[in-house]
């Protein structure tokens, strides 16, 4: 056992050794150690280099507030976690950890040059230094800053671990299992409700885990704790969660917890997850989050070996580790004497106690005197010495006039400091509870709560073991706890910098250790004119590191307040935000990764298309076949073949993703009249019509074919992506505007498989499949529908609705059958089509064919500023209707302006490849930047049937420009185009009506 490890005591398992590696060296610790306690047991304080100046840093604290000792821990290249606090990492056999922010090594770090140059890196230097020359920003400054920014590196491989998520409800959620939390849980459990008690540490107990003197109700603290936890564990209504951090407090008493399930194990148990995210909705929340000891601000207060006094006590009593051999205590608080005396009793030489106050507590003085410890009242620390480890502290004292004089340099390898205690109000503040300034404590404490939240113990400024226990219990039922050796309770402590001679250099008196913000930086901020802590914080970056200023916020505030000669409350406290400590993305993502990230909707023919080697594309949540390449075909060749097949013979297309809404009721036609621009009253049963839906601003929102199935029943189709929002819009008008209409809306998108058969031979194919229906041109003209049935082996009469509709410009049919029969009917159609040269085609071919006909795609050829007339669809508007959604807006003068952008076609005169979609259009050659842009390309394809590229475009006053030459400026030069009608193929619609 190492020299720093005590012979007895503590909660580590002294019979079980653990070997682990830190920065490539192997060390030995004990089961129950944290990485920090194990390193200290090996005499290692130096664990990190600081963020900005690369100064050597040691372990400051013993808990989650640790600002310095950030380490990386890894199992392999994918399981690599940066920026973990060594004070929270539990060691296991073979643990691998390393320091960060240093090169080539922790002991010798090139970046240290920044420290020597620190006067060139004051607060706010980013904002000033890199302003000039402007050119240098991209090539020099930005890459340099990016390289220097941040601590730690992210793993490059995907996280192979699993994370779970869980919702929970309880009557009482208690955050923090120290004496207040446990007493609250014991009392709450008696009420019979569900109680959930969580704590971020590996063991429940909080400060009781390092309490060796006090007796509670006649038992040692450890015995009392064991008994209390046993009582709680035996209660089936109580849930105890250790290693569980309450990281966020959300509205209506929803608290986010992250439970580290297997991180502390050498290997996870089979099937074990890494972390579990809890979302706990609690009737009431009890915060028992304790308090954090404040560092003191003096030059050299960041040297490895400088440590919070209470942390040293924790290392001694809980882990059996002496953090040094010869210590000086500098304190503004009576409680820290306890740490010095306990360390002295454990064999650490206490060289001196420097008490910042004029009059230290009498009892503490007496105890220190009788232990033979020299005391400097009205004392201060003027500086420290040592390279990678503290070697001496320079002690000073104030005289009666307040002047500071150097007294003595004291050799020591441990400098304990205590500036008092800051209540942990993070979660309370996150819940939007109001904070109040306590003059007595010189700290913020919880005031009026915004949620059903109550606080107990040190987090609300109640100190002393018996009072803390009683405070926790009293939330549910008053109870008396008899505690011996209660010890002193903290007072106001000390805020801001320790007294220094007037000419002292305070550049190395650190306030925020994690972001390397010194006293000098904060003074500079006030000189620069920043008067609010929110601004000082952003200028200096104090409190903006991953620790959110747990140890630094109050000192920064006090320094600014003193300099500005204002009370701290007027300078303000920054808002606490979640997460309390850094939380993994994995726990937030949970199972929502890879295939489970988003649901995927597949059509009835998905497997068929997959088996034929189709290439798919996502369209909203759907996966649609984009094209069906044959041997040796790229997309271009494949689409060309598919297009020609549809134009010359017959194509087969799965249109099942079309949104479908059935509108039923005596007022169904009136409902559609009010909603769509078209007239629906005169649509006969058995007929279809192309409908346009605008919003009340007059712009196209959706389109689709609507069929009248019966006088009171319409089958509305929508765009694939628009189905949900169209139904939502319909429901909005139905429920909130037109409550007088008797009409019902049902989404039928997934009820029907839609098999489109398009091409000159389509009728012959469909005829052989659909029975009981007359598909002749006379009986079923374009935009009509009929019903029939399809017979399969195991389903003699599958009902089929056949729409004669076309999105290709060819003779076309869409066979609608119940989705469950979709594949069977598809197979039959494909089989029947073999004699007619049927070819399956995908969305890419569909796009080309519709563009050849000038059919728009809402969202591609329209963008939310396109009216029906802009799109060339004014013919669809029911002119005699008194009103429809959008009508009034379409009557505004600007909606009929001749220079509105209108949909036209473009022929490319000089190019062989299609224009780029989105490319801008100008009306003359050789314009200088900024050019006068008159429109843009919305759709662009190679047309196989025309043998040249075509495009659709929105162009200002476009229809009046038909025949004109325009230009598309591209990086390679201007492309000359001719404006045409958007209908490139079969303008008279002969094929459609065939």
């Amino acid at each position, binding site marked *: 056992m190492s020299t720093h490890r005590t012979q007895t005591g503590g909660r580590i398992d002294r019979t079980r050794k653990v070997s682990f590696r830190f920065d490539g060296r192997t060390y030995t610790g004990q089961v129950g150690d944290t990485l920090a306690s194990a390193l200290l047991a090996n005499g290692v304080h130096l664990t990190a280099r600081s963020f900005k100046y690369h100064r050597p840093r040691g372990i400051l604290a013993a808990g989650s507030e640790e600002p310095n000792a950030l380490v990386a821990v890894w199992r392999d290249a994918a399981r690599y976690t940066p920026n973990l606090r060594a004070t929270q990492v539990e060691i296991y056999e073979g643990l691998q950890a390393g320091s960060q922010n240093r090169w080539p090594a922790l002991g010798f770090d090139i970046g240290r040059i920044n420290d020597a140059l620190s006067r060139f890196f004051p607060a706010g230097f980013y904002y000033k230094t890199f302003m000039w020359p402007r050119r240098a920003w991209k090539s020099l400054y930005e890459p340099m800053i990016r390289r220097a920014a941040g601590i730690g590196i992210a793993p490059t491989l995907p996280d192979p671990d699993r994370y779970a998520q869980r919702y929970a409800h309880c009557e009482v959620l208690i955050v923090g299992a120290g004496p207040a939390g446990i007493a609250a849980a014991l009392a709450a459990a008696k009420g019979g409700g569900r109680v959930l008690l969580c704590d971020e540490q590996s063991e429940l107990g909080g400060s009781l885990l390092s309490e060796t003197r006090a007796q509670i109700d006649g038992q040692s603290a450890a015995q009392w704790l064991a008994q209390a936890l046993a009582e709680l564990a035996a209660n089936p209504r109580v849930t105890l969660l250790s290693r569980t951090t309450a990281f966020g407090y*959300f*509205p*209506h008493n*929803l608290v986010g917890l992250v439970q580290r399930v297997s991180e502390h194990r050498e290997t996870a148990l089979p099937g074990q997850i890494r972390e579990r995210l809890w*979302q706990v*909705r609690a009737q009431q929340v009890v915060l028992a989050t304790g308090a954090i000891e404040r560092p003191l601000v003096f030059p050299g207060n960041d040297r490895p070996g400088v440590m919070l006094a209470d942390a040293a006590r924790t290392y001694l009593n809980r882990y059996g580790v002496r953090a040094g051999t010869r210590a000086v205590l500098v304190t503004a608080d009576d409680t820290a004497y306890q740490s010095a005396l306990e360390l002295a009793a454990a064999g650490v030489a206490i060289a001196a106690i420097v008490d910042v106050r004029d009059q230290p507590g009498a009892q503490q003085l007496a105890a220190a005197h009788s232990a033979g410890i020299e005391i400097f009242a009205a004392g201060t620390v003027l500086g420290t010495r040592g390279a990678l480890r503290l070697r001496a502290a320079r002690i000073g004292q104030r005289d009666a006039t307040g002047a500071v004089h150097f007294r003595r340099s004291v050799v020591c390898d441990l400098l304990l400091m205590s500036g008092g205690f800051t209540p942990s109000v993070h979660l309370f503040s996150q819940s*939007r509870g109001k904070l109040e300034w306590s003059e007595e404590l010189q700290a913020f404490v919880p005031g009026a709560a*915004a949620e059903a939240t109550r606080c107990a113990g040190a987090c609300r400024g109640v100190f002393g073991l018996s009072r803390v226990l009683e405070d926790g219990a009293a939330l549910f039922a008053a109870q008396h706890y008899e505690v011996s050796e209660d010890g002193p309770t903290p007072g106001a402590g000390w805020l801001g910098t320790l007294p220094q001679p007037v000419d002292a250099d305070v550049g190395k008196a650190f306030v925020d250790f994690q972001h390397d913000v010194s006293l000098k930086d904060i003074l500079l901020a006030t000189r620069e004119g920043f008067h609010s802590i929110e601004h000082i914080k952003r200028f200096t970056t104090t409190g903006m590191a991953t620790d959110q200023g747990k140890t630094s916020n109050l000192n920064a505030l006090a320094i600014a307040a003193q300099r500005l000669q204002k009370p701290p409350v007027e300078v303000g406290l920054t808002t606490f935000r979640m997460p309390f400590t850094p939380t993994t993305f994995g726990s937030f993502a949970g199972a929502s990764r890879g295939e489970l990230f988003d649901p995927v909707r597949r059509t009835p023919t998905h497997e068929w298309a997959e088996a034929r080697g189709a290439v798919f594309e996502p369209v909203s949540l759907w996966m649609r076949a984009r094209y069906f390449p044959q041997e040796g075909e790229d997309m271009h060749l494949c689409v060309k073949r598919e297009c020609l097949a549809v134009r010359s013979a017959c194509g087969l297309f799965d249109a099942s993703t079309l949104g479908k809404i059935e509108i039923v009721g005596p007022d169904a036609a009136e409902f559609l009249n009010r909603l769509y621009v078209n007239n629906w009253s005169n649509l006969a049963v058995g007929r279809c019509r192309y409908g346009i839906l605008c919003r*009340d*601003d007059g712009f196209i929102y959706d389109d689709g074919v609507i069929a009248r199935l019966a006088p009171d029943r319409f089958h509305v189709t929508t765009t694939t992506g628009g189905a949900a929002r169209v139904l*939502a819009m319909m*429901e*909005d008008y139905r*429920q*909130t*505007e037109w*409550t007088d209409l008797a009409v019902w809306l049902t989404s039928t998108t997934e009820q029907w498989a839609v098999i489109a058969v398009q091409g000159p031979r389509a009728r012959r194919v469909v005829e052989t499949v659909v029975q009981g229906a007359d598909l002749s041109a006379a009986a079923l003209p374009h935009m009509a529908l009929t019903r029939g049935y399809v017979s399969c082996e195991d389903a003699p009469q599958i009902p089929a609705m056949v729409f004669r509709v076309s999105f290709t410009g060819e003779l076309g049919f869409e066979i609608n059958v119940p989705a469950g029969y979709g594949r069977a009917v598809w197979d039959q159609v494909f089989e029947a089509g073999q004699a007619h040269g049927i070819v399956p085609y995908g969305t890419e071919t569909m796009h080309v064919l519709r563009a050849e006909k000038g059919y728009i795609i809402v969202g591609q050829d329209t963008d939310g500023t396109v009216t029906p007339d802009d799109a060339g669809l004014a013919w669809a508007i029911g002119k005699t209707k*008194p*009103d429809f959604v959008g*009508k*009034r*807006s379409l*009557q*505004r*003068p600007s909606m009929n302006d001749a220079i509105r952008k209108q949909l036209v076609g473009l022929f490319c005169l000089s190019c062989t490849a299609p224009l780029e979609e989105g490319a801008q259009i100008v009306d003359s050659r050789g314009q200088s930047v900024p050019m006068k842009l008159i429109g843009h390309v919305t759709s662009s394809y190679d047309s196989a049937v025309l043998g040249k590229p075509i495009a659709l475009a929105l162009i200002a006053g476009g229809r009046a420009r038909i025949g004109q030459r325009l230009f598309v400026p591209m990086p390679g030069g201007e492309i000359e185009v001719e404006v045409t009608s958007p209908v490139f193929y079969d303008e008279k619609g002969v094929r459609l009506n065939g």
Partner: protein
Amino acid sequence: MLLIDCPYCGNRPEIEFTYGGQAHIARPTQPADYDDHQWTEFLYLRDNQRGLRAERWRHSHGCGRFFNALRDTTTDRFHGTYKVGEPRP
């Protein structure tokens, strides 16, 4: 995450709901009678007040019904919900 009290279903988490803008703005029954200025006002202008605000919400991933709610824009708290057609409490 907020709990929102759907008047038809009770308290449900906010992810089940969709916000629907300011409440109690009825679409004119005779838009033709509105001049351009009045129509623009109906179409685009909405209150942006501090404090209690009546809003439309839809329980889109539940019963699908629209309802109105009073929400405090400073605290994000709901102070009651009521059915479409009912007066603001």
